[in-house]
């Protein structure tokens, strides 16, 4: 059954590759079939249990093909199918032939290739094929990021993405080849009883962590996600960075990990969560801000995974299962609401032509659908009940609290992690109140914002699909527990079967009641206000005679209090030239938050390498006499080595 579904998925994807350039509607149909096939395969694996394996009598690159789908990979496959399908519907109308005649076809082709290769990464159980699919999807993603490569910033972002991805790929080449050298085969599978493989985990952590956008390896992420077309940002943020998480989950489950690994992953997770949201608060580019929230959410996922690894190391099944289940559920949740937010942001940016939040405002009036769906995504990502973000954060919290109550050594890490996770939630709320308030509410701050228009029905449909996913997981988390339980059991079979934690049923009831009552109260209060009499008047402005939209509070001022606390790492750059005349006519003031790690660590390091290389170039000047001298010196040095060292 799984095989049939996967055959449909593969056939659909291949057809869509062929149809991409010429037939947009055929592409959408084929891609939809492919995405549905992937979803069907994932659901079948969860319903039937066990692992699906397929070994055709064929080989690629000298290695026999071996496909395998278990609960862990099916968990990711379901997300990829759903978000990829919704993204295709969105992309068909967002990056259409009419709007982008030069690049629309290429965009569809690379989209299909990206999803196809991501699926292959999940399916293959051979290290060499894993690397091939990995490399191909990285390239497809590069071409998607630079789809509209006329802008300088876009090309720079694409280059940074490509460079960072190849650094990650380099680590993974090392990881897989060392693994193959030590096991004698490229075949991948559970090898938990080989403790000598444990140190390889550090290579995997660097390679997969870089791809996932974990702090401080996230330097490529904000610019790539901000400058890519919005449907691409959504797939990058919702799906592609999750493949890094998949790698970490997969190989921390299959291979033994060093005892310190769990602690390191958890610490990196906490750092990513808190600093990701702090950087997000400092941004005034809407899409860049959303990109930094990916770093934050990857951090939350890593907190869950890290504590699960600690628990596995210490044989603490009870809270380890909760932490991992929370982390995994957050993979789905982040995929859903971040894709939703990027779709909505794409509609907003398309309607107004700018990503600068200080030029937007009051967009709810022109774009009620987009605004309400953005608000839904904002509430979900802030971890507010009764939506899905809260469910996964709550599971991680429960894991941390139970770890504290167990009074083991993990408690000393669980206490600060729990407090900082709470801090992250409150900071995310502050950030999204800022975004919603500045972008959607109030008065338009520019002409572009006042002439905005609602996005096309297909785009709205894609957003509604993702939004209903957020609501479904929020209102009925108990139905998704069996899926999580199966994935968790596959990750660590030593823990045995997982039982549903009873509170999920109670939480479902609380969430359902809350949603019902909040909706009823809102409608009732609106009606009551209408019955009492509604009157419109200008906003209270202390009686000022000429209020303008530019007097509204800006995003920068809004975040000022919190960015002040994080100044030590944000290092905001202020331009505030002091007015020198007696009656200055114009005064300007600006502030922007750079990518600190990139500008203060990576770029100086890169500069140093370049300077060294330039210095070394002086030895190459084209004078033959000098080259002969180098040869002579080389031979002399070798001779000295032979004489002194005593060759064997």
């Amino acid at each position, binding site marked *: 059954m799984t095989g049939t579904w996967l055959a449909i998925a593969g056939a659909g994807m291949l057809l869509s590759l062929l149809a991409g350039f010429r037939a947009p509607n055929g592409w959408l149909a084929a891609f939809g079939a492919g995405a549905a096939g992937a979803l069907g395969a994932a659901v079948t694996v969860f319903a039937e249990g066990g692992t699906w394996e397929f070994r055709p009598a064929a080989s690629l690159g000298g290695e026999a093909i071996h496909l395998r789908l278990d609960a862990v990979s099916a968990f990711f496959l379901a997300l990829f199918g759903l978000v990829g399908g919704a993204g295709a519907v969105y992309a068909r109308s967002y990056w259409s032939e009419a709007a982008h005649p030069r690049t629309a076809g290429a965009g569809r082709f690379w989209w299909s290739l990206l999803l196809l290769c991501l699926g292959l990464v999940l399916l293959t159980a051979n290290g060499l094929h894993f690397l091939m699919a990995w490399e191909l999807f990285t390239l497809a993603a590069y071409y998607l990021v630079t789809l509209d490569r006329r802008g300088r910033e876009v090309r720079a972002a694409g280059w940074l993405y490509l460079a960072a991805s190849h650094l990650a790929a380099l680590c993974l080449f090392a990881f897989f080849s060392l693994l193959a050298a030590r096991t004698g085969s490229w075949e991948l599978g559970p090898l938990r009883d080989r403790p000598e493989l444990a140190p390889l985990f550090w290579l995997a952590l660097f390679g997969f962590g870089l791809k996932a956008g974990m702090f401080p390896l996230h330097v490529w992420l904000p610019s790539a996600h901000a400058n890519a077309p919005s449907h691409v940002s959504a797939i990058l943020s919702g799906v592609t960075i999750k493949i890094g998480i998949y790698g970490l989950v997969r190989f921390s489950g299959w291979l033994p990990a060093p005892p310190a690994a769990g602690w390191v992953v958890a610490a990196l997770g906490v750092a990513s969560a808190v600093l990701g949201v702090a950087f997000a608060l400092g941004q005034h580019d809407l899409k860049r801000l959303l990109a930094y929230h990916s770093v934050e959410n990857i951090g939350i996922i890593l907190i869950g995974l890290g504590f699960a690894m600690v628990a596995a190391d210490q044989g603490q099944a009870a809270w380890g299962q909760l932490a991992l289940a929370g982390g995994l559920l957050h993979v789905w949740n982040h995929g859903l609401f971040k894709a939703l937010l990027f779709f909505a942001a794409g509609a907003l940016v398309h309607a107004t032509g700018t990503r600068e939040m200080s030029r937007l405002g*009051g967009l709810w*009036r022109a774009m009620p659908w987009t605004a309400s769906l953005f*608000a839904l995504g904002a*509430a979900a990502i*802030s971890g*507010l*009940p009764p939506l899905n973000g809260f469910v996964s954060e*709550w599971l991680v919290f*429960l894991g941390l*609290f*139970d770890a*504290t*109550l167990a*009074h083991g050594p993990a*408690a000393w890490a669980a206490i600060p992690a*729990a407090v900082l996770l*709470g*801090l992250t*939630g*409150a*900071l995310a*709320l*502050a950030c999204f*109140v*800022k975004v*919603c*308030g*500045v972008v959607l509410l*109030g*008065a338009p701050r520019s002409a572009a914002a006042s002439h905005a228009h609602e996005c096309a029905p297909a785009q709205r449909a894609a957003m509604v699909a993702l939004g209903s996913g957020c609501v479904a997981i929020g209102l009925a988390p108990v139905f998704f527990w069996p899926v999580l339980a199966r994935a968790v059991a596959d990750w660590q079979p030593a823990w045995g079967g997982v039982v549903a*934690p009873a*509170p999920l049923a*109670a*939480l479902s009831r*609380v969430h359902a009641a*809350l949603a019902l009552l*909040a909706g009823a*109260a*809102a409608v009732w*209060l*609106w009606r*009551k*206000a209408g019955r*009492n009499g*509604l*009157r*419109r*008047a*200008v*906003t*209270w402005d*202390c009686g000022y005679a000429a209020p303008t*939209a530019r*007097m509204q*509070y800006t995003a920068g*001022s*809004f975040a*000022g*209090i*919190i960015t002040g606390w994080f100044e030590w790492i944000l290092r905001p750059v202020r331009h505030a030239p002091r007015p020198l005349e007696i009656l200055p006519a114009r005064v300007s003031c600006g502030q922007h938050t750079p990518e600190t790690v990139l500008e203060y660590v990576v770029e100086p390091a890169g500069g140093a390498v370049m300077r060294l290389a330039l210095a070394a170039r002086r030895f190459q000047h084209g004078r033959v006499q000098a080259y002969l001298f180098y040869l002579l010196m080389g031979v002399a040095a070798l001779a000295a080595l032979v004489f002194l060292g005593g060759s064997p």
Partner: protein
Amino acid sequence: MTLILDLLPRFALWFVLAPLLPGIINKVKAWVAGRRGPPVLQLYYDLARLWRKGVVLSTLASPGFVFGPAVAWVAVMGAALLLPLGPAGGAPGFRGDMLVLIYLLALARFGTAWAAMETGSAFEGMGVAREVSYAVLAEAALITAMLALCVQTGSTSLAAMLAPAAGADAALLAAGLFVVLLAENCRVPFDDPNTHLELTMIHEVMVLDHSGPPLAVILHGASVKLLLFALLLTEAVLPVGKLAPGVAAAALAGGVLAVTVGAGLVESLLARLAFRRVPLLLTTAFLLCLFALLMAWKGGA
């Protein structure tokens, strides 16, 4: 069905009693200042009057301006219903319900903040910015306090956490929670409910443009939140679960009264802090809760 029948009387209790607290605080302030002050029931009169009044909406506001307060009120009421009421029992608790309580308060903050941002007023933007920023520190303190209670009782469910008395760390926990109460409810020294200068307000400036029933809902929600924090503080410190029902009810009422009078005295005797000093005080509250957590840890180990 039985659950609803069980919840209804407690809902009624919260609904009716909550607006009493601001009245008591105002009475205490008047008494310290040597005035007669407004009647204790003044908020009830205000709510009844506002409920009958018409609504003036900002020309910029969407229906979210009215939905926000409604959602916030439901969230605060939900959080209140999660809290056990000593002898009157609590909602059927479950593991981790204290996190639901904290996040319901966050949902309420989102609702009021959203409604305030609707108006596009710089004053209200300023108030919201302060509210959500200081809430970050208050939430850290609150989670630490909850962790301390969890460690002390070995449970993550409110009903079990709040039944016994806090141990040696009771004083630290009470002090920390009291500061959080003042911050979350926008009392002096964080905010002055009586101020009339828009630039210096936090909570009051967020509701500048609200009127009629939505304002009534906001004021009622704020009073429920005050009662919630006063009750949480009392139950965290007193061994409510170990007393006979009558005594426990009296202890709860006395505790809440003491906290309320305390808030009134603080408000009469202290000046409000400069905004840049606010994070310092909230960090102090966090540290108090952290020390309480460490003491609970030592006691339990």
